[in-house]
Each structure stands twice: as C-alpha cells, then as structure tokens.
C-alpha cells in the first residue's frame, strides 16, 4: 500500500493532473462531486495556486452563490488544488475573485477568431447566465475533464 501510494504520488507530481497538449484532465472523485454540481468541474491546472487559494477562502460568496464545503472536503480540495494548480503565468488569476475565464491563456484560446463556428450560447435578456461558464455547450465531454478538440461541437448543434 505504502509503495503504491508513493508511486501514485510520483505520478501525481509528475503529471500535475494534466496531460500537456491534449486538454484532457483527470478529476478526483471528491473534486468532481463537490466542485462539479453547480458547474463543470473546471480543470485545476487552468488556474494558479494563488488564484485557487483566494477562491477557496471565499466559498460562502462564490460568484453570487453560497458554495461552502464541509471542513474535511474543504481540506481535501484545498490540498488537491495546490498540488495540481498551474505554475504558468498565463494561468495567473486576476482580481479579488479570480476566474479561470479571465486568465491570459483562456482569453487567448477563446478570442473571437478562435470561436468562429462555435458561437457562444445565447443568453436571454435579463438572465444571469454567463456563456463562458457553460463549457459543456461546446466542449461536449467537459464533464469528464475532456476538453480535446475531438469532442468540440457548436453550442447550437451545427457541425
């Protein structure tokens, strides 16, 4: 068991939870359950450690919703996020409530010329829905941590 755990730890540290280049991310069951019930369980590797730390410190006011966690889940998820967070400056969280969608990397990947053929989901006037939070609309396997181009599909179903 001990050997297995050290081996797993090595894998974890090496991979950091992401497979560089293919945009598929492994999600722990606790993380997927706790952070994937109101929105897609966003890949931990897409925000830096400081950004995640701030996010976890204010879960009671989490982008307009109370998302507070039980102490045990909070500890588990905090250490997981610190272990898997990005070390790239392109993933640096900005502002008092950092969003994955405002990092330099995310903005570059989703600039208008990249989105051609993949229009953002329409939001009815007055609705609070935020199109960029709806990964699953175009990344059809986002719930499984798969953001690979093979599973991309326009939000309205057109190919």
């Amino acid at each position: 068991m001990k050997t297995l755990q050290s081996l797993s730890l090595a894998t974890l540290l090496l991979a950091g939870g992401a497979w560089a280049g293919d945009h598929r991310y492994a999600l722990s069951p606790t993380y997927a359950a706790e952070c994937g019930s109101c929105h897609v369980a966003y890949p931990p590797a897409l925000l830096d450690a400081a950004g995640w730390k701030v996010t976890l410190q204010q879960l009671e006011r989490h982008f307009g919703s109370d998302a507070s966690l039980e102490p045990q889940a909070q500890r588990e998820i905090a250490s997981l996020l610190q272990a898997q967070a990005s070390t790239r400056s392109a993933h640096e969280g900005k502002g008092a409530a950092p969003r994955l969608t405002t990092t330099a990397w995310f903005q570059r990947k989703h600039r208008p010329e990249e989105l051609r053929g993949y229009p953002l989901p329409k939001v009815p006037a007055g609705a609070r829905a935020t199109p960029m939070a709806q990964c699953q609309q175009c990344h059809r396997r986002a719930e499984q941590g798969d953001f690979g181009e093979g599973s991309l599909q326009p939000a309205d179903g057109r190919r």
Partner: protein
Amino acid sequence: MYFLRPLAMGVALALLTGSTLAASPTSPAELQAAWLAEARQSNPALRAFSAERGRSFFSTTHGSDWSCASCHTSNPGQGGAHAVTRKLIEPLAPAANPRRFSDAAKVEKWFGRNCKDVLGRACTPEEKGDLLAYLLTVKP
C-alpha cells in the same frame, strides 16, 4: 490510452486522499420526523408539516432574486438547470429521483447553501419539513 490515464489518476487520487465524504443514509420519513421534533421545540402546537405551505415556499422569492424554482423549475418532478451556469440539475422530488433526501449530510449541506442564496439565512426545521412534504406530493 488517453482515456485510461485519467482513470488511473482518479484511482491514484482516491488512494492518496482516502475515501470521499462518508455517506449518512436516511429517508424522507426519517428527516421529517427529526425536523418535526426540532420544530416542536419552538412551536409545541405544530402537528404536521404542510405540503401547501411547502409548495408556496418553493415557488416564491424571499426578498432576493431567486426562488427554489429558479433552478429546480416550477416542476421539481423534472430536472432543471443552474440559473448562471446552465448545468443540469436532476429532479428534486423523491418520486422522480430516489437519490434525493437519502443522505442526511448532503441534505443539510444543500439546504445550508441554497437557503442562504434564496432567503439570505438558514431555513427553519418547519420550512424544511413543509418543503419536503410538498416534494413528496410531486409525481414524476
């Protein structure tokens, strides 16, 4: 191979972090009994919960933008979607989704979060009991 690696990673993480939160099995009837006992401490005259009060509680706002129905829709026998992220939400009525109200810790966690979003405070045992009484009348 790409699909196996995330799986192996999930297993590795489960080993590292230990199990996820322990389940605390319960049933709607057990929850109702506990809430009724709790509610009677401040209101000894309370005889039973009211599905009608629960229905009204579910569908109206309580001083903020959202009601329960904003995400769970006006028919909790069917699924809904999160008001901001459009993430799908499974049906809330136990008849439509037997996993609902079957884990005490989960029930309290979600009441804790959602009551603060909708009412700006915790729900009382009476409100929880009325709400569940209503949900138990909803058919899929």
